[in-house]
């Protein structure tokens, strides 16, 4: 049933966010530490249980896949509800700080990507 998939997804998210909050408390920061990431790992693990008894039926899967497909529309709604005014009207320092951080990170990606792949010399 479709609701099994939606329920599984919801359970994973709640469990992950809860774990992220606990982790934050544990290391003493006022933030959720990787809750969504933990939820993602949990979903991958639970949906990959190979035992026949726990295999998800295609209809159950469609309950997860619907929300997977809703990702882009949700991101569009997220973009439309950002505080863009605050980002662009607070003066140059904030803008330059934000832009410089992004540029530095973009430049860093190819460097790190080469590292992780075992230092292939030429790329």
């Amino acid at each position, binding site marked *: 049933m479709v609701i099994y998939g939606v329920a599984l997804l*919801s359970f*994973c*998210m709640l469990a*992950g966010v809860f774990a992220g909050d606990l*982790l*934050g408390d544990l290391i003493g920061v*006022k*933030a*959720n*530490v*990787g*809750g*969504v*990431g933990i*939820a*993602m*790992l949990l*979903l*991958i693990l639970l*949906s990959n249980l190979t035992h026949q008894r726990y295999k998800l039926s295609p209809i159950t*899967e469609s309950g997860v896949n619907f*929300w*997977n497909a*809703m*990702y*882009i*529309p*949700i*991101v*569009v*709604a*997220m*973009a*439309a*509800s*950002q*505080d*863009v*005014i*605050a*980002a*662009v009207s607070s*003066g140059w*320092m*904030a*803008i*330059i*700080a934000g*832009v410089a*951080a992004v540029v*530095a*990170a*973009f*430049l*860093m*990606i*190819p460097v790190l*990507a080469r*590292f*992780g792949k075992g230092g292939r010399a030429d790329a």
Partner: protein
Amino acid sequence: MPETLADVLRGNALITAFVFVGILVWLSYLLSAKLTRGKLHGSAIAITIGLILAYVGGALTGGSKGLADFSLLAGVGVLGGAMFRDFAIVATAFGADLDELKKAGAVGAASIVIGVVLSFVVGAIVALAFGYTDPVSVSTIGAGAATYIVGPVTGTALGAESGVIALSVAAGLTKSVLVMVGTPLVASRIGLDNPHSAMIYGGLMGTTSGVAGGLAATDPKLVPYGAMTATFYTGVGCLLGPSLLFLAVRAVL
């Protein structure tokens, strides 16, 4: 009659948002196909139009939630809020390859720490260049260059003044908007086309909304990998900002 219609739209805010976003996405894909012959991804156009509308919404209403500050479009704020965003991000993991995650795990984790430190240092240097010299302000603005959550968390912990905290939020917002718009434009040049580099990208950028938007506009298949590392970034930033990084700034200044 118009009042009745407005009441219906307001009373069913989330459903109104589905229709609104549906039309927006449809228009964007139409523009992508007709104007750019598919070169510029439809979702990239949709996100950009969304940001422009958010600017217009903020300018007209004076609120902080973009279009969602129009009462008729309040549902857009619900649909685009953290709850549904995180829910959809988790759902993207359904298609993710566990082996890819394991392979890039170590460098992905390293990229989070490198990303936090890099953004912090860059932000702090900009703050210094603009004449801030006290360690608390410099650290708060540096933390804001990480994400708009790390900035205020660090600033509050260090007792920064509210104007500086507002600036740190603005720096983080600028970052997230730029990551959304800029990622598809530079993706091919920085090799952002596989799960491995997507994990590094998520760890270096760290802004969950920026990464979510940027990867959606580049290649939705990469979303789970980038989102996985990005969701740990804010936590790591909140851990390092008011502690190690602040102490380093105080030692230097």
